[in-house]
């Protein structure tokens, strides 16, 4: 079946502009995660959605970052007033079960470059 998809695959933006990154999880998966992968920081958790519950935003690095998940499916990660340190690969993952024990399925990522 279809895996997690993300768009765009690459995004180049100028410093100070806003960007939106999209994630389509696997159909039926209730849990959705955003992570960031960068050379200096490795793989970092950003935000987690589970069903209709309030998201866990504890990993967002600043208030320039926000995310929403519409209808329990598609999610959009928005970065406002981008900075060069925001350059990274943004990975989305989904899981069919919100417990701690279930593996997550990752999308191919969006490579963001801020010039």
């Amino acid at each position, binding site marked *: 079946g279809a895996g*997690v998809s993300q768009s765009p695959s690459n995004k180049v933006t100028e410093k100070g502009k806003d960007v939106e990154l999209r994630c389509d999880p696997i159909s039926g998966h209730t*849990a959705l*995660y955003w*992570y960031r992968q960068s050379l200096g920081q*490795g*793989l970092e*958790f950003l935000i*987690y959605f*589970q069903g209709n519950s309030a998201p*866990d935003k504890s*990993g967002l690095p600043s208030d320039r970052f926000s995310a929403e998940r519409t209808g329990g499916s598609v999610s959009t990660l928005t970065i406002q007033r981008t900075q060069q340190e925001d350059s990274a690969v943004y*990975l989305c*993952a989904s899981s069919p079960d*919100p*417990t*701690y*024990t279930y*593996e*997550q*399925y*990752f*999308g*191919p*990522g969006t490579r963001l470059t801020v010039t």
Partner: protein
Amino acid sequence: AQSVAQPEDQVNVAEGNPLTVKCTYSVSGNPYLFWYVQYPNRGLQFLLKYITGDNLVKGSYGFEAEFNKSQTSFHLKKPSALVSDSALYFCALSGTGRRALTFGSGTRLQVQP
């Protein structure tokens, strides 16, 4: 706070030889441990997990991992390496109260023909 350590940035092994990629962890309560592999310009691909039960876990592509509670380790192993195993490997942890994964820094595995 929970953490994962992968002490080796890179592991080099000859094709056909056994390989080990090391991982240690720290967490309060029960650990739920995972290994993922990342090929160039690709997302992370799940290999195997330890939740409970048998300390030796078998996963995809002939990989296995051994959970050792006393040493807080979860090393990834394969009896006979292939050139196609060359990739970036991540150990990850989730635990009670934190569903998101905490990742190690990654280990690059290079298998030489």
